[in-house]
């Protein structure tokens, strides 16, 4: 793709990775799958090492990272959105947060440089899983009739407004939520990866052109690339947090409709 005299790779080539093993089968392994597996290993390693009993009063290293994560999920996610009842969802939410985080952060890890969540597979799978969970929790907490009533006819709304509110709530709660959850994560990671590739290609092209291009690459495009790399670290953490807290909000709403 030729854009303003720059040879830019086609977008599908930035995200669609060829199979490495089992090509042509439903269980083919490509770079995205390897990142998923790496995220699983990283999370297991983190919690496996952190869970070893130690006598130290002040946690350090991986123990500090894992405990801070658990504490963060408990205080900033569960207690803020569900309350003490939500502590039983802590393992699920913690797993989700770290899995998404590690799958995102590969975007800026040298020689990997690809966010696995810029592929739709995991965002949509997790979003559908969340949809099943919060609906199950809602039916279990309020009963099928109560859950539907509270979801479609929010209390405190003047009854004529139900003509407008109920269809909106129906579409919003049961149809749009999982897709908005998935697309938010996916689109952010796609945009981040495109930004990084854009500035990387620009830097390479300017440097290759020589002369004024050296200055342009050193002063403009490469510093921007470094800046964007730092920004994408923030986005990776933030998107993992947003996905997790929205999951908790949906579960909390199903458990406590009065909120």
């Amino acid at each position: 793709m030729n854009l303003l005299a720059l040879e830019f790779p086609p977008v599908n080539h930035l995200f669609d990775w060829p199979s490495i093993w089992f090509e042509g089968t439903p269980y083919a392994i490509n770079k995205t799958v390897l990142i998923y597996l790496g995220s699983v290993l990283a999370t297991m390693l983190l919690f496996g090492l952190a869970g070893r009993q130690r006598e130290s009063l002040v946690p350090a290293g991986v123990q500090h990272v894992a405990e801070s994560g658990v504490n963060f999920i408990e205080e900033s996610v569960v207690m803020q959105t569900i309350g003490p009842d939500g502590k039983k969802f802590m393992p699920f939410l913690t797993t989700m947060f770290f899995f998404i985080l590690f799958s995102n952060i590969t975007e800026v890890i040298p020689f990997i440089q690809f966010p696995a969540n810029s592929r739709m597979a995991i965002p949509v799978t997790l979003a559908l899983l969340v949809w099943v969970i919060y609906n199950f929790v809602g039916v279990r907490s309020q009963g099928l009739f109560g859950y539907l009533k509270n979801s479609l006819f929010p209390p405190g709304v003047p009854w004529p407004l139900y003509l407008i509110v109920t269809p909106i709530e129906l579409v919003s709660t049961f149809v749009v939520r999982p897709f908005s959850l998935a697309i938010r994560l996916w689109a952010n990671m796609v945009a981040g990866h495109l930004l990084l590739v854009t500035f990387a290609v620009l830097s390479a092209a300017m440097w290759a052109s020589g002369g004024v291009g050296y200055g342009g690459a050193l002063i403009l495009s490469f510093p921007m690339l470094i800046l964007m790399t730092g920004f994408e670290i923030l986005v990776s953490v933030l998107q993992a947090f947003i996905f997790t807290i929205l999951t908790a909000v949906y579960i909390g709403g199903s458990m406590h409709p009065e909120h």
Partner: protein
Amino acid sequence: MTATIRRLAGAFGLIGVLLVLGAVPASAAGETIGTCVFEEILHAEEEFGSLHVLEEPAHKKDLVKFEEDLEKCVEAPSPIFPELDEIIWGGAAFLILFGFMWWKGFPAVQRAMQARSDKIAADLDAAEQAKTEATTVLADHEAQLAGAKAEAAQIVEDARAQADLVAAEIQARANEEVAQMRARAAADIESARSQAVSDLRGVVADIAVGAAERVIKSNLDVDTQRALVDAYIDEVASGNA
């Protein structure tokens, strides 16, 4: 302080290296249309020997596939549709991870956090207990000190009273002794006086005898006799004085 600065400098250095390293080969993730087409041609040539072979009717299907592969180089299939293999692997990976976290990872970390929290609470309780004990001991010591002070004051007071008593006793004894001495002195005086009187009587008797002798020797009237006796007595008294 120095260690903190060293750590901060190390952290910033590491972040800097990661940012630069992370930034440099970002474009390696993708490929250009040219390289894609070139790779497809190379692949076809490796498979068929020459691209002209594909023009033969026998390789019509291969030609169609080759053309499709070339078109894929410029086509961008919608990235919004997830791939089945990635869903299977990603979903399985997440479920395995969730199983591990549910069974082992999360409870272990939570136990470690709870153990630390319990230890801190126990240490705080122990410190509180030690403080209470120290306060009790301090209060005991202060009470003992106050008792000792009161006791000392009592002892001093008793000693003072005892001293006063002893002083009064000594005073009384001294007074008594003085009185006794006085009495003895008075008795002595009385005794001396009695003795003197007795002696005087003896002398008086002698004088009387002497005076009588004189009276007898000269016949005098009563007044003269009395005068003689008085004169004699005065004489004796002045002689004794």
